[in-house]
């Protein structure tokens, strides 16, 4: 991200004064996220567009058959590609990967891949020979703050939406047949848990010394900052949780220090939002499945129901 984009002093002061009187410029509460709007592709499996306020992104999941790593013959491959281009915001560099971009990609990857949210062993076809390789391409289309939360949510949604073609093994395990999605119903991925990232941004209304030395915790924290809020923030923390009350990742890369008690308080408070977002994914996918079921008239194909 280039450095020469600065918010004017007037705007900054206005914004901070508003915060001090408890108002966010887009009239959200301090711990309120923007409502995600979800578009699931009706035609293909694993294409999702997400509107997180005016932050927009498109996620595409694809699968191919590959040879597994030699030291892990039973595990499938899983990759997340993060594409941040100047399409989303002119100040993102097209060629060079700036530090911010690496951080965003790393945090999303740690939240989803490292936490084993996708069951890799279920992607194994023939041990040591053939496994599914699942690739998630994350393209950011418009930037209005908070790529991390939106990106993580989008990827999880797409993984739920995606179905890989059914396969059968023939010739005693020598050959495999990949069945076309029109020929046989494709199979969904086995997602073990749903990590949800929440980013809190910090603002210090007092001076630096009071923040470091003072006993009072008067720092203001905002959940899900938009672009203006992100440009003015003095620090941020990403908390990743799932609904089993597991803390998957904590990441605070610099910024003003926060009190340990505040951290605990924020993590506990986040649980409610995590539950809601997880529920939202389940609900949207379920509704989508039902629609697809109706549309394709799959009931006609089901045998055994009447028997």
């Amino acid at each position: 991200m280039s450095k020469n984009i600065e918010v004017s002093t007037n705007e900054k002061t206005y914004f901070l004064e508003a915060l001090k009187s408890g108002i966010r410029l887009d009239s959200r509460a301090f711990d309120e996220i923007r409502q995600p709007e979800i578009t699931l592709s009706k035609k293909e499996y694993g294409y999702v567009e997400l509107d997180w306020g005016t932050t927009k992104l498109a996620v595409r999941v694809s699968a191919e058959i590959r040879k597994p790593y030699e030291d892990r013959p039973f595990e499938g491959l899983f990759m997340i590609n993060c594409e941040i281009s100047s399409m989303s915001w002119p100040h993102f560099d097209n060629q060079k990967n700036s530090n911010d971009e690496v951080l965003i990609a790393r945090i999303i990857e740690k939240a989803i891949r490292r936490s084993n949210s996708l069951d890799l062993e279920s992607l194994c076809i023939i041990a040591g020979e053939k496994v599914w390789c699942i690739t998630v391409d994350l393209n950011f289309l418009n930037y209005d703050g908070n790529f991390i939360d939106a990106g993580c949510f989008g990827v999880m949604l797409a993984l739920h939406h995606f179905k890989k073609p059914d396969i059968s093994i023939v010739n005693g395990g020598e050959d495999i047949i990949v069945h076309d999605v029109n020929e046989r119903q494709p199979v969904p991925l086995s997602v073990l848990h749903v990590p949800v990232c929440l980013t809190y941004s910090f603002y210090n209304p007092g001076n630096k010394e009071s923040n470091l030395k003072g006993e009072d915790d008067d720092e203001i924290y905002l959940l899900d900052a938009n672009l203006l809020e992100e440009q003015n923030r003095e620090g941020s923390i990403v908390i990743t949780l799932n609904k089993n009350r597991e803390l998957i990742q904590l990441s605070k890369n610099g910024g003003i220090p926060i009190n340990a008690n505040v951290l605990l308080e924020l993590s506990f408070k986040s649980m409610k939002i995590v539950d809601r977002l997880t529920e939202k994914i389940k609900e949207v996918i379920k509704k989508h499945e039902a629609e697809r079921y109706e549309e394709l008239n799959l009931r006609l194909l089901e045998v055994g129901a009447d028997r």
Partner: protein
Amino acid sequence: MELYSPEGLRLDGRRWNEIRNFECRINTHPNSSDGSSYIEQGNTKVICMVQGPMEPTLRSQANANKATIEVNLAVANFSTLERKKRSKSEKRMVEMKTTLERTFEQSVMCNLYPRTVIQIDLHVLSQDGGLLAGLTNAITLALIDAGVAMYDYVAAITAGLHDQSPLLDLNGLEELDMSTLTIGVIGKSEKLSLLMLEDKIPLDRLESVLAIAIAGSHKIRDLMDNEVRRHGNIRSSKLVNN
């Protein structure tokens, strides 16, 4: 392999709340840098050198309001058991570097040194868990040695969770098998300037892990403070003799 025996002993014979041997020296390279330090946290060994505040080589690095902090991280090929060439552009390295830069931007009084750059060179000689913590401590000491104005010490340490019990200052073997929380604490307070957790821990256990980690980092702060004072005394006694 038993990470934590029923008797309450760990692989290297420590108890749950004990840190590894912590050795530190400052002013190790008085001729080649403005400030330098060497730390050993168990078998993790780091050299840190600070140049500056000085005029930036590139115009673009100059910020009219505050100093720019630049961290260079070099991990030696021989730092792990297996010899391995490491590239600086590896995502993990870039992440660590950026994290350190941003942490110290806040704890150094950057506003006192406008239009300058403070260059921090880190050399990792040996890795055995708690790398980020070790790097943070080394930088803190080297900055103090360089006489750069800071608000307070940034003391960092790792802590992990084994079953139900939190363990302090994990070594390399423990780190492989446990989720590790790295924290950086400002001085003797409970303010966290650095925080990194990469694997799952139950939310309800966070408090206990955090508590022991904060206690551990206060201990580290004291050890670093002792070294700074010891070195200060040597210097002042030299002044008296002349």
